[in-house]
């Protein structure tokens, strides 16, 4: 029996667009963000209320723009996607505002045991404005996607082009000099720095391009992949020639791992591919092959490359003398994040009252620990539920939609979002080794935010397609059907 939540279609004669629901939910999200802004402002010294109001108005205006675009170009889209994403985005802005404010009032920063002062924040004074500009860019891309991609299946035409773009985007930083592609303070080479303007992390967009490309490839090849092959030890093995693409992807992800020191992204990337191939073929063998090859590759890399091995050591023994005390204090960041979350406890210190700035790079990779410290267990559980809801709406869309390409794309993107949250939140809470990737919507930085909004745009377009009522005939039966397509 199909569950009503998953299988229900709007009644034929009453197509519910549910845009009103979306608006109400948006107002709810705005209220929470505004409250969080006010809460932060009252806790911190030296805040300027006028700038806060300006930030809030800009944020609301941008998101309302997204809502209007959905009304116009995707009227049947899932009503929760935009409000949930907007809530996360808004809370991210509040946290960046809070982290940036902590550096004011002439605070020199904490002093470490060597007696040197650690800069209290690496955020520039324009960080909040920039993040709002990034939000605007993200919503711009969101709207553009809805305007230009009316039908998700058109993406299927560009399967190989998207794949090529994806691989080039991923590989590009590896071939650029470290001065352009290196991230300061880490060994990772994952960005393209444009002097005077900032930097772009191409992998954020590559993940989306590759997901669309995989979907196209797998829809074309799913029959061969699932049917041809031999059966060994009860497992259906695919044919050697069909293994080609997975081998390529495996190598590309290993390349990421090694050449760019980007373990987190390669895990997301590999997980995305394995999940999509599994959805396409329903063959457990692919899960096994993908999982075993990634774990095998990771362990091999841990043995061969010291920086990968260090990640495992930090995960297993974060408090050891070697990792925490001795230079270069490899586990310092993780441990500070854990201390932050411990400091938050059940209800948190309250926005503006914690000490999240003691965690290095707290505004990007470890922003989740800042929420843990200031909003407590209650707050981070809520954040996880918001992420979970977005993923659930995406998977629900995948189940509802009929076209296999769209189904695969929706499922893959939803899983990718879930995996990304799992990798970074699991990493900072020491469930799995910490690998630096961004926290979708929350982390400071434009590439991640824009890419996340594009992901929401794709899901919105797919859910719009899934929920749109069938075209209604506008003349009598029996004649050639002329239909009205909105």
């Amino acid at each position, binding site marked *: 029996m199909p569950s009503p939540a998953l299988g229900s279609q709007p009644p034929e004669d009453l197509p519910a667009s549910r845009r009103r629901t979306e608006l109400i939910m948006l107002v709810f999200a705005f209220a929470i963000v505004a409250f969080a802004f006010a809460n932060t402002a009252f806790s911190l010294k030296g805040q300027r209320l006028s700038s806060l109001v300006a930030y809030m108005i800009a944020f609301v205006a941008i998101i309302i723009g997204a809502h209007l675009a959905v009304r116009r170009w995707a009227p049947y889209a899932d009503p929760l996607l935009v409000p949930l994403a907007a809530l996360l985005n808004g809370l991210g802005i509040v946290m960046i505002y809070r982290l940036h404010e902590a550096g004011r009032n002439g605070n020199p920063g904490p002093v470490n045991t060597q007696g040197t002062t650690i800069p209290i924040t690496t955020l520039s004074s324009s960080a909040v404005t920039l993040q709002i500009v990034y939000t605007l860019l993200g919503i711009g891309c969101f709207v553009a996607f809805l305007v230009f991609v009316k039908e998700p299946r058109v993406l299927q035409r560009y399967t190989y082009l998207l794949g090529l773009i994806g691989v080039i985007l991923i590989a590009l930083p590896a071939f650029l000099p470290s001065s352009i592609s290196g991230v300061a303070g880490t060994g990772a080479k994952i960005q393209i720095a444009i002097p005077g303007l900032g930097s772009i992390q191409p992998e954020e967009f590559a993940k989306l391009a590759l997901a669309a490309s995989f979907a196209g490839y797998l829809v074309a090849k799913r029959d061969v992949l699932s049917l041809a092959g031999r059966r060994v030890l009860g497992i259906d093995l695919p044919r050697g020639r069909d293994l080609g693409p997975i081998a390529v992807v495996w190598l590309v992800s290993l390349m990421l791992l090694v050449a760019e020191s980007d373990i987190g992204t390669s895990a997301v990337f590999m997980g995305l591919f394995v999940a999509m191939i599994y959805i396409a073929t329903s063959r457990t063998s692919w899960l096994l092959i993908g999982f075993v090859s990634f774990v095998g590759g990771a362990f091999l890399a841990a043995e061969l490359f010291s920086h990968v091995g260090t990640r495992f050591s930090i995960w297993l023994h974060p408090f050891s003398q070697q990792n925490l005390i001795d230079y270069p204090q490899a586990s310092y960041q993780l441990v500070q994040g854990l201390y932050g979350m411990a400091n938050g406890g059940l209800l948190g210190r309250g926005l503006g009252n914690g000490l999240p700035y*003691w965690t290095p790079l707290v505004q990007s990779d470890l922003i989740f620990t800042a929420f843990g410290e200031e909003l407590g267990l209650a707050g981070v559980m809520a954040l996880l539920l918001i992420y979970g809801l977005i993923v659930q709406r995406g998977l629900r869309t995948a*189940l509802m939609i009929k076209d296999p390409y769209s189904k695969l794309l929706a499922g893959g993107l939803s899983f990718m979002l879930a995996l990304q949250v799992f990798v970074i939140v699991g990493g900072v809470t020491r469930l799995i080794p910490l690998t630096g990737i961004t926290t979708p919507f929350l982390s400071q930085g434009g590439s991640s935010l824009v890419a996340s909004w594009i992901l929401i745009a794709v899901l919105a377009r797919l859910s719009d397609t899934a929920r749109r009522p069938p075209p209604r005939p506008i003349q009598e039966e029996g004649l050639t059907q002329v239909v009205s397509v909105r």
Partner: protein
Amino acid sequence: MNRALKRISIAVLVMFLLLMINVNYLQGFEASSLSTRPDNIRAVSEANQYERGDIVTADGVLIAGTTPSNDFYKYQRYYTDGPVYAPVTGYDTIYSTSGVEEAEDALLSGNGSQLAFRNFIDMITNKPQKGATVYLTINSKAQLAAYEGLAKILAGKGRVGGVVALNPATGAILAMASYPSYNPNVLASHNGTTVNNYDEALLRENPSPLINNATQTTLPPGSTFKIVTSSAWFTQATTRNTSSMVYSPQVLTLPQTVNKLHNDDDEVCGSAGANGQTTILWAFSQSCDTTFGNLGIDLGGQTLNAMAERFGVNDPNLNIPGVTVAPSQYVIPDSPPLTAFSAIGQYSDTVTPLQEAMFAAAIANNGTLMKPYLIQQVTASDLTVVQATTPSVLTQQVVSPAIAGYLKQMMIAVVQDPQGTAFAYNEANEGGLEIAGKTGTAQNLLNGSSPNPDAVFTAFAPANNPKIAVGVIVQGGGYGAAAAAPIAVAVIQAYLATLGIR
């Protein structure tokens, strides 16, 4: 494809469940152990985000307070007359605490469980959390007199000294001064480099200013130990009193050895003559070593040890909140000659200034020794008392009231009798104040740098209605009456002046 999608959904559900369980474990269960890890500077920093409670003396002088700070922390700890009160308050650095700051840290920082309900109310009413105020038993005038007295004698000498004053009736510590001292204000700095540099400088200094010489340094008691020897002798037979005759030779020939025990400057003990007898009162007031050496041999090490322990010696469990106490020692000698030396406060006898004060306090309180304490009470920010100390007895009747009366009479004689060793501080000289005391001038073989003996004085006053008992030890100070007694008298005068007693 939907079957696979549903399985993927289950996988996603499991992933999110794992995250949620892990976050719950981390913030709900593991949080307290993470927060107490020594390298967790957040805990220290968090404490400095609240207004730490004040430390106040019994007469209302604020000796440790906080001011709003404009740097990384919201509040800065400061100490009034830092070096004077350093052995009392201890320090509160960004890394560690000591003294009262350590003992009452939970209440001072406002995190103690007794304050949990008030903090909850404060949270609801949006009042900032504030630590509780600690009221000490210290009298600021007595403390200042004690420290200044020590500083006057010891400044730049590289030797140590300590003073403790007690209320004999309760055991309340009225003064606790140590020299050399340090400035806790520097240690309270929020700049880690400043703290580390000062700490390293203090650790390099010898003698270390970080040691509280009033309670942690033990030195020979010298003749003040004759209080113990006399107490043991009186206790041995109830027929004895201060008029009882004791053997007081000019030179005491020690058994089993060729060594002989002489009095100071080889004097004759009073009117006794070279081999004569004299009253114990006379021998005590003149501090005849031969008399008490001989009594010690007669009493034996076991008896002396038992009496010393009744006064609090050899007690490793003397636990005074906010004070680190090193036990004073009496080692039972294995031969009569050594017993003779131990009976006059030499051999292996070592005591703290606190113990010296306890000798006088027990006598002053009719023989009952009260347990010393420093923290009178702790009050929350709404002025309700969350913790209070009630005086308790350490030893009920160290000696009987009658014997305490004999000892008092003898200690009065030390100061008031023209032949007494501390006659310089007699009633006439001290403006009518009758002080009772005992001097000590201890040979200290460990004083390599100083040829002088250690000066010791223990006293209480007013003799007939004791309000204060003081113990003073000045390492290498010379005669007890010359170096230690003036400090004790100054402390007594300063304290009694606040009570309106002259």
